[in-house]
């Protein structure tokens, strides 16, 4: 695929991600959160094709550069999960990592971070609570909006 076609394809996907947002969310949520979630859904798109069901529920917030936030989530052994983080802020770098309840890094090595987007992959060894750590590593904005979605199969 040539670069232009790739950009066109990705943009179409992003627009589609925004369009599928529930109307209630569009009506009630800060537009920056809508864009941040659209980026998170953009990151999720290739995984949907691999059979991951993306949850409608998501987390959102804003962080200063260098700040991080922990989100606690119940995961089940036997399932496979991806967590996708997105932000709309240009030139921001974000990351997401998963730790078990003992504070040990629990994610798979194919977790990744690429400018506006980051994703963490886990195949839980035990059923229980895990901590998803969301970070804004660098950002030109005073506060960087983020949205975190997840999917499972």
């Amino acid at each position, binding site marked *: 695929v040539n670069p232009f076609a790739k950009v066109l394809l990705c943009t179409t996907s992003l627009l589609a991600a925004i369009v599928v947002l529930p109307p209630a969310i569009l009506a009630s949520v800060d537009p920056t959160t809508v864009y941040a979630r659209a980026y998170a859904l953009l990151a999720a798109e290739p995984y949907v094709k691999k059979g991951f069901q993306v949850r409608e529920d998501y987390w959102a917030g804003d962080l200063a550069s260098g700040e991080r936030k922990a989100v606690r989530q119940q995961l089940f052994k036997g399932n496979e999960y991806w967590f996708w983080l997105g932000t709309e802020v240009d030139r921001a770098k974000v990351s997401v990592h998963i730790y078990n309840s003992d*504070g040990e890094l629990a994610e798979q090595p194919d977790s990744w971070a690429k400018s506006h987007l980051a994703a963490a992959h886990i195949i839980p060894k035990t059923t*229980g609570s895990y901590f998803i750590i969301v970070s804004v590593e660098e950002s030109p904005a005073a506060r960087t909006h983020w949205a975190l979605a997840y999917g499972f199969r």
Partner: protein
Amino acid sequence: MVLSSKRLNSMVAAVFGVALCAHGAQAPQHLNINQLSTTVEDVVVPLPNELFGALNKLGAVNWKEHVRSDKEANFTERPRIALLLGTVIADGFIAVQAEDAPAVKDIGQRVLALAKGIGVGNSITPHAKAIIDAADKRNWANVRQELDRTQNSVQQAMNEVHDEKLSQLVSLGGWLRGTEVLTSVVKQHFSEDGAELLHQPDLLTYFQTRLQTMSEFNLPIVHQIQDALAEVKPLINIGNARISAESVKKVNEITTRLGNDIIKKG
């Protein structure tokens, strides 16, 4: 929704950038979670089919025997309707597991009726239609997605009118029904891995905490659930120890009793 051209250009540049550069995802091997405790947000309640998916991987489950056909009573109290709505959505996920199209279609109608009863019917109508259409086509992935959207839309609509407590009761109803079915399956063919799926102490604490703030819902069913959760907690909150077959059986008795109380007048 209309995107500004500046915003669109920014997104195109960002997406293009993704293809060109990637920064490392270095993370410390260990983190002191307690230091982060002030920033931890509320628990997001897993969908019943997250649980059922994990259960399915442990061995074949006869989902058809868990599809519920008895009709629930008509309630006028909104907290009761909210609990029931969560239960019926969970029943939808069970019917999908069983690939029972008539049951799924029936559940689509019941969800719509309950949503109307609680004043959020408008936001559910398109989802109910999509559930029925997808069931007709036996497109189970779409039915699952629409059930999730239904629950999300109900809760969004409730949150918008500051009915967050009712929204939490929807989640609680679904969790109780999911736990009832999980324990029923594991009780029949006990395995340690199956029992481990009950290890959800933080979720249980979350529901207990929420129920404590619902003093205005002075209904017997709410008190019964509070008592039941207090009974269940020591059975599943056992640290690194294994959850026993006896505990699974006990949790099943408790959640089955509650399930009957939620759908019937009493």
